[in-house]
């Protein structure tokens, strides 16, 4: 007999364990398991749950991450609720299937504790892996705390199953995935009521046989890609609605963008992830003490990009710095979030000094002191340029 947790309680959990608890609460059917640092403890915990009879799911101990994503594609196509997790090289190996999963409109949820990509090999945290997957048609959340990881994974199932798109929940590898904080866990019966099993448009079933994954000639291919474009636009609204509904039912909601002291801020750091946001907030406090009207913006929903929300919170700002933790080589500016924000600003006639600060690459420590320097730089000499902070040149 599967024991469902029927009360709310608070536990001290790492980000990864919080993810595992969320997957358990969501009554997932099939989980593809493959180890890679820093994701492994998620699937270890899930394996424990299954072994203890707390989670009624099939674990497929696949032989690679490419097969991990392929297996959950198959299981999802057959109508199951699925989960897998990966990072860095695993995400890269599965890359081909990322496009296929979203184009086949399967509501897969995947946790990605982020990690730098080879070479040289690094197990430490930066956002190179998720940023490399940003255009694959997945809904992408970037969570900043273990509590948010727990809540977001549950929300992601509802969003994915509503718009028929897969969803990724990314968060700092090690810095969030392996650090402990108090996490409030919901009554699992209520979570299951929040995530009812919907009737999927198409599944693999001999009673209603369909063909999935055909060959599309030039006369047909484009229309299916455009369907994905429309689905992404719909996803933006659904993400907000589900988050609000979650807030009503469980008392916690996050929006698509989180702000800190932005009401009267003149200088803002815009970033993602827990470590960068946390240190930027500490730096903003110091800046405020020293008379700089500093604020911080954290982008929580990365895809679809919440353009209007971001522009809105930046309205009163004189100059901003976008703090990126990934390098997109050869780009006009190497930071991926910066590129999105610059495009958003350009398309909506917003012209203000915006610098791109690249930091925290390969988990290079982002000192609060560094972040404070960003504010002074914005106040004294804000330039539209890329600054590689923290690297020895």
């Amino acid at each position: 007999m599967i024991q469902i947790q029927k009360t709310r309680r608070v536990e001290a959990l790492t980000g990864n364990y919080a993810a595992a608890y969320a997957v358990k609460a969501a009554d997932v059917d099939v989980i593809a398991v493959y180890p890679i640092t820093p994701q492994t403890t998620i699937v270890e915990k899930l394996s424990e749950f299954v072994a203890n009879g707390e989670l009624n799911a099939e674990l497929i101990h696949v032989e690679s991450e490419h097969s991990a994503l392929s297996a959950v594609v198959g299981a999802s196509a057959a109508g199951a609720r699925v989960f897998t997790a990966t990072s860095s090289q695993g995400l890269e190996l599965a890359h081909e299937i990322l496009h296929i999963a979203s184009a086949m409109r399967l509501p897969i949820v995947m946790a990605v504790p982020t990690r730098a990509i080879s070479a040289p090999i690094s197990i430490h945290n930066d956002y190179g892996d998720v940023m490399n997957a940003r255009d694959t048609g997945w809904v992408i959340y970037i969570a900043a705390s273990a509590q948010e990881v727990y809540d977001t994974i549950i929300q992601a199932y509802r969003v994915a199953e509503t718009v028929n798109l897969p969803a990724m929940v990314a968060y700092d590898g090690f810095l969030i995935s392996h650090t402990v904080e108090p996490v409030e866990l919901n009554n699992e019966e209520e979570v299951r009521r929040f995530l009812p099993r919907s009737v999927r448009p198409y599944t693999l079933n001999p009673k209603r046989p369909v063909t999935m994954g055909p060959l599309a000639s030039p006369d047909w291919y484009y229309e299916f890609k455009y369907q994905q474009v429309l689905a992404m636009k719909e996803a933006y609204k659904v993400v907000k609605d589900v988050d609000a509904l979650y807030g009503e039912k469980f008392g916690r909601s996050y929006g698509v963008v989180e702000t800190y002291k932005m009401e009267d801020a003149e200088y803002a750091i815009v970033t993602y992830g827990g470590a960068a946001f946390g240190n930027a907030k500490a730096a903003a406090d110091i800046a405020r003490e020293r008379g700089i009207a500093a604020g911080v913006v954290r982008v929580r929903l990365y895809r679809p990009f919440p353009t209007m929300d971001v522009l809105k919170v930046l309205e009163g700002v004189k100059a901003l710095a976008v703090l990126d933790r990934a390098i997109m080589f050869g780009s006009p500016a190497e930071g991926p979030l910066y590129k999105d924000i610059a495009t958003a600003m350009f398309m909506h006639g917003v012209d203000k000094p915006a610098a791109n600060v690249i930091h925290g690459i390969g988990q290079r420590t982002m000192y609060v002191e560094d972040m404070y320097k960003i504010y002074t730089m914005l106040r004294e000499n804000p330039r539209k340029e890329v600054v590689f902070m923290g690297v020895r040149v």
Partner: protein
Amino acid sequence: MSLPKATELPIGAVIPEPGSTRRNLTAGWRTLRPVIHDDRCIRCQLCWLYCPEGTIVERKGVFQVGNRTYDVKYEIVYDYCKGCGICANECPTKAIEMVPETP
């Protein structure tokens, strides 16, 4: 002929109608057409067995062939026959003749 719009198509490029290649007649592929000479056919079923298109059908009935009576007859549904000639090649009595397709 205008093709359907993105919003009119099933999502994810799913094809919901099984066996819809039946709409596509492949008769135009062939240059040779198989003709079964029923009087030489001994109902061995090999042509039906081996046809790659599955376009040779078995008809039940009473068929008089010389002094023998059969309860089946094999007929080629020419809509899908690509003229490969496997049926003629395998026929043990050479009852199937490949004749040039007429335009």
